[in-house]
């Protein structure tokens, strides 16, 4: 365990570059992880997010750039002295050790007494809902239980930073949602600095105080989830986040914008005096109806979802007209960066 004053500072990544032969996995990354905060690194596979995590852990060294924690340069510090705890995508539990010995692994290295280890292990297993599982073997556990053990093992020595590498991606959907909730609660109460790598947007937005969006070895945008959704900034980000409706540059120019533009279809409201859209298709979506619409004037296709009772009359069918008001706030210009 380290002194509290060092724990208080931010983890800073500055200009970090990592190459594998001709491939540049990280191309000048800057990132701040404040104490107590959870940063979600979100991006498609191959964007470099797992590499960045391995650099933070010290499992690999950057080709250029620095990693500091509260001003202390960590770049050349080996993983065992960084005070990190890491949860691996494939759990990486030691198959030759039982659950208790897995959780206590770091405590042995840190020289804890037998009694202190036993107490800490019991406390952590209780915390992750596996009280009394000390003597079980990893292969006897379900995937979710293995992931809980991996989390307990990473937290055991009170790490300054918790690194999570797609911890839920090997689990099935229902379990993933349960564990996501548990993780969120845990991260909030532990007051540990955490970096959470995922390719799942929902997970990133649920767990991250800040979401850092990565693409092709660079951090594209950083911000709180709501801010990212409100102002995705460029076409790629908006598309990756699934924000509707991204209109390409040609359409944007036709509508009088400088380039591509975001049309928030959820800002559109039924209005008898509004713009006329031709309904191409209607499909039920739970209690709501999804309309595939076409604006013949601007030649814009978009999908609008609404409750039938919000509509002034009976819902229009295919080929009929739906009138919607398009407020100015529905439009957000986007950068045309590739």
């Amino acid at each position: 365990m380290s002194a509290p004053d060092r724990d208080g500072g931010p983890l800073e990544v500055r200009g970090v570059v990592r190459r594998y032969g001709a491939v540049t996995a990280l191309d000048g990354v800057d990132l701040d992880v404040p104490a107590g905060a959870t940063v979600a690194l979100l991006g498609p596979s191959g964007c470099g997010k797992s590499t960045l995590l391995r650099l933070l852990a010290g499992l690999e060294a950057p080709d250029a750039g620095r990693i500091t924690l509260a001003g202390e340069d960590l770049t050349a510090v080996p993983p065992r002295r960084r005070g990190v705890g890491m949860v691996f995508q494939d759990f990486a539990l030691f198959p030759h050790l039982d659950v208790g010995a897995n959780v206590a692994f770091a405590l042995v290295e840190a020289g804890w007494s037998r009694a202190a280890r036993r107490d800490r292990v019991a406390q952590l297993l209780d915390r992750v809902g596996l009280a009394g599982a000390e003597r079980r073997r990893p292969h006897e556990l379900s995937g979710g239980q293995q992931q809980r053990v991996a989390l307990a093992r990473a937290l055991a020595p009170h790490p300054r930073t918790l690194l999570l590498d797609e911890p839920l991606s090997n689990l099935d959907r229902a379990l993933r949602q349960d564990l996501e909730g548990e993780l969120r609660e845990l991260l909030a109460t532990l007051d540990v600095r955490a970096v959470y790598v995922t390719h799942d947007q929902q997970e990133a937005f649920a767990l991250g105080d800040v979401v850092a969006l990565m693409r092709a070895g660079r951090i594209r945008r950083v911000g709180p989830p709501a801010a990212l959704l409100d102002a995705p900034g460029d076409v790629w980000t908006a598309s990756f986040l699934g924000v509707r409706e991204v209109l390409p540059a040609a359409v944007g120019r036709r509508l009088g914008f400088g380039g591509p533009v975001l049309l928030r279809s959820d800002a559109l409201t039924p209005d008898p005096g509004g713009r006329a859209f031709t309904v191409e298709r209607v499909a039920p979506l739970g209690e709501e109806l999804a309309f595939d619409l076409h604006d013949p004037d601007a030649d814009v296709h978009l999908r609008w979802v609404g409750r039938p009772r919000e509509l002034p009359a009976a819902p229009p069918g295919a080929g009929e007209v739906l009138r919607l008001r398009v407020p100015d706030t529905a439009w957000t210009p986007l950068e045309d960066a590739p």
Partner: protein
Amino acid sequence: MRGRGALHPGHVAAVLAAAFLAVLLLAPLLAIVARGVAAAPLAALQEIVRDPFFAERLGRTLLQATLSTVLTLAVGLPGALAFAHYRFPGKAALRASFTVPFVMPTVVAGAGFLALVGPGAPLDVGAMDTLALVLAAHVFYNHAVVVRMVGGFLEAAAPHLRDAAATLGAGPLRTAWRVTLPLALPAILAAAALVFVFTFTSFGVIVILAPGGTWNTLEVEVYRSVARSLQLDVAATLAVVQLVVAMAVAGAYTALQARSAVPLRSGAPLPRPGRGGVAVLVATLAPPLLLTLAPLAALAWRSVVPPGADGPTLLGWRAAFAPSDLLGVASGGQATWTSLRFAGVSALLATLAGGAFAYAVVRGGHRWLDRASLLPLATSSVTLGLGILLAWPAWAGTFAGLAAAHALIGMPFVARALLPSLRGIPASRTAAAAVAGAGPWRRLLRVDLPALRPALVAGGGFAAAVSLGEFGAALVLTRPEWATLPVAIYQRLGRPGAENYAAAMAMAVTLMVATGLVMALLDRLGGRGEW
């Protein structure tokens, strides 16, 4: 998915595999046991065991095999750990070169050491007939077993676990102690068991490097009893004792192998070594590399510069490949042709048999055949030859007899190459083919076989290489006109004169190149087995 009542290929394969094993392994072994026990009822057996000559043979064989195993581990383990830890340029080539001695025929290994330290050799320090020389040769061709089995296991299973240990506060040494070694223990013990069986039943190395007889293994004594004096009773009794020890250790091996054969997975990429890592790599890998290359280089050199020659001469090569006018000495050309024919036929048979084993295990659900397929590995070749001689006397001296023996010895290599590939075919693919209307036989033809082609070629090639180098069974079962290359080399080494010596070296180089070519081809095809 199994058609009710229909003849499922998995069951047909099981019947074929069982029949193969029964005829070629079980019947010969039972024939030996029957002969050995019949020859020596309990009282007589006790007498044999009390015979100081016999006790000495058993004791020395055990001592030699134990020392060989310990030394092989000592040389192989650091290399295996270094292999599993780092990625570095030339690693694949180095791995391949470490496998060379393992697939090199024992006769080539023996001839190589003879060329290096034998009479008139550059390092002639009077090592002939010493235990040290036997041990060196055993380490030479067995340390690859350790590097492959232990290194391969760790490389596949351990990188992500080492990462985990590093983030949990363990340095490299602590990680090796707390994670890597405990993980590898089953693989280490399995490798040790295999090395013990190989060296306990060692034959070619002993008869070439320790012809004085001090370090004769039971296997050599079995051969001497058969060949020199046709004392089949004594041979059978000796073989039974040897079988009991070898089978017990082999049983341990198969049990351990099952534990250490984890499904191969690609973990995180291995790190490149730092400055300290390079030092570790050089320190651990250079000695075995030297041990691997020196005898083979000496062999090639001595084939053109025989002892007493003033300079390079092709005398040996000419003598080796000229038509032989000596009785009981095959010409090199003849022997090469014979070896290639045996290799081709036995590899084909081994591929069919190994395929039947793998298919019966994976598709037929006959799990017991998985371990049974390893049994031929534990059966030494002279003993097998003796067994075939006793069980099927009509095969003695025929082409079929030796081809069958070689097929049996090669079969495990095919089965072990096929098993992971067959297991790797996703169940959904089989199901998709079944839904599309393909019955089990059609699935075998249209789904499994195409996916198995690389493994089939790799396993068959391995079996061919093994047949090329097989010595003991060939010596027992062949007539002079069927002499294979290893037998012809041994014939030449037994004759006096520099010309015969150089001819033996020339043929050993031929055998080395032939085996090397087969293995290089396999490495290119990238077959990887479950060991």
